[in-house]
């Protein structure tokens, strides 16, 4: 998931060619207050005239305690971005407020109600504590997204590369998201030059259960994609698991084993997830 500053045409118009699965057009922090109007119009036009069919499009809007967020939604909802990212979300009420307004704009624009999903950006201590409330607040919520920089500022602690200070927030978000059957996405690694640090941080995020990770530089896209994509061995094993299950069914076996290990429900579930990713990334057929 690549953040792109909303008022920078050079990056915006190439949003779908930089390798990320998702382009996040940023109308918030990347845009100074006196350029909010310009960025809003530019992002709207980019969505209107450019073809972003190669990637998912998310628009990060301004916080609900500013004068900008409704204008942001008025401009972009008629162009049907995949998701809206409200910022500094600290409870389900904020999501319901944003969702209700999205619904009004959808209705006004003649697009199907509920088409645009919400990806809340959780970046405050209160937001982390209310992660489940946020995740379960509205049918539009498609995932939870952790913002580590603002979160650590709110926690009065220093943001480090090791990330101990956001460990609790990470696990809490993943758990809340999974409990609601949605995805969780990790905060960006902000040192653009440190590729090893990025890999370590991304591998750790994956190990916690995150489905993806945001990046602030196109240079980080490849490593994050690589870490979050299943390996050839994982894909091969997932196919073997599903084959063994089918074979077991044919033979009427109750207990099935593969390579000397019993295949239980969690192993099948994980194999299905790997095959779903194989389908999403490679269109299947890697075997």
């Amino acid at each position, binding site marked *: 998931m690549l953040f792109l500053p909303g008022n*920078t*045409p*050079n990056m915006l*118009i190439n949003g779908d060619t930089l390798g990320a699965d998702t382009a996040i057009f940023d109308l918030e922090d990347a845009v100074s207050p006196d350029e909010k*109007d*310009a960025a809003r*119009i*530019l992002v*709207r*036009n*980019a969505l*209107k*005239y*450019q073809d972003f069919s190669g990637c998912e499009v998310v628009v990060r809007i301004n916080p609900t305690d500013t004068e900008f967020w409704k204008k942001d939604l008025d401009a972009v909802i008629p162009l049907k971005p995949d998701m809206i990212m409200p910022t500094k979300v600290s409870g389900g009420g904020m999501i319901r407020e944003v969702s209700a307004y999205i619904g009004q704009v959808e209705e006004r624009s003649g697009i199907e109600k509920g088409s645009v999903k919400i990806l809340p950006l959780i970046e405050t201590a209160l937001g982390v504590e209310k992660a489940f409330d946020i995740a379960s607040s509205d049918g539009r919520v498609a995932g939870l997204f952790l913002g580590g920089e603002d979160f650590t500022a709110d926690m009065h602690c220093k943001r480090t590369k090791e990330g101990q200070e956001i460990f609790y927030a990470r696990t809490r978000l993943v758990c809340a998201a999974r409990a609601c059957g949605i995805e969780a996405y990790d905060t960006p690694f902000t040192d653009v030059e440190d590729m090893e640090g990025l890999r370590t941080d991304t591998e750790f995020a994956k190990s916690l259960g995150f489905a993806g990770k945001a990046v602030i530089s196109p240079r980080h896209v490849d490593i994050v994609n690589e870490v979050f994509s299943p390996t050839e061995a994982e894909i091969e094993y997932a196919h073997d698991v599903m084959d063994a299950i089918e074979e077991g069914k044919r033979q009427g076996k109750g207990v099935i084993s593969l390579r000397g290990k019993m295949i239980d429900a969690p192993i099948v579930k994980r194999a299905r997830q790997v095959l779903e990713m194989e389908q999403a990334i490679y269109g299947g057929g890697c075997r």
Partner: protein
Amino acid sequence: MKILKNAVAGTLESSDLFIQIEPDDTELVLEIDSVVANQYMDAIRGAVLETLKEFDVSTGKIFIKDKGALDCVIRARMETALKRGGVEKE
């Protein structure tokens, strides 16, 4: 509609353009300086004039320095400049 006050929009970065507009009650002055003038001057001029028409603006001074902006960027920056200059779509 008329341009009511001086306004600017855009930047001089690559793929962008910088627009300055000023009120003028009598005529339309349009000056475009573009790094891709040889290939795309007609298209740039067309996008600017169409945006002016959309906002029903027929007079004013418009100065543009283009750094290779796409059509959708030209239209966005024109709209921003016009709105900042006091022009609203009816």
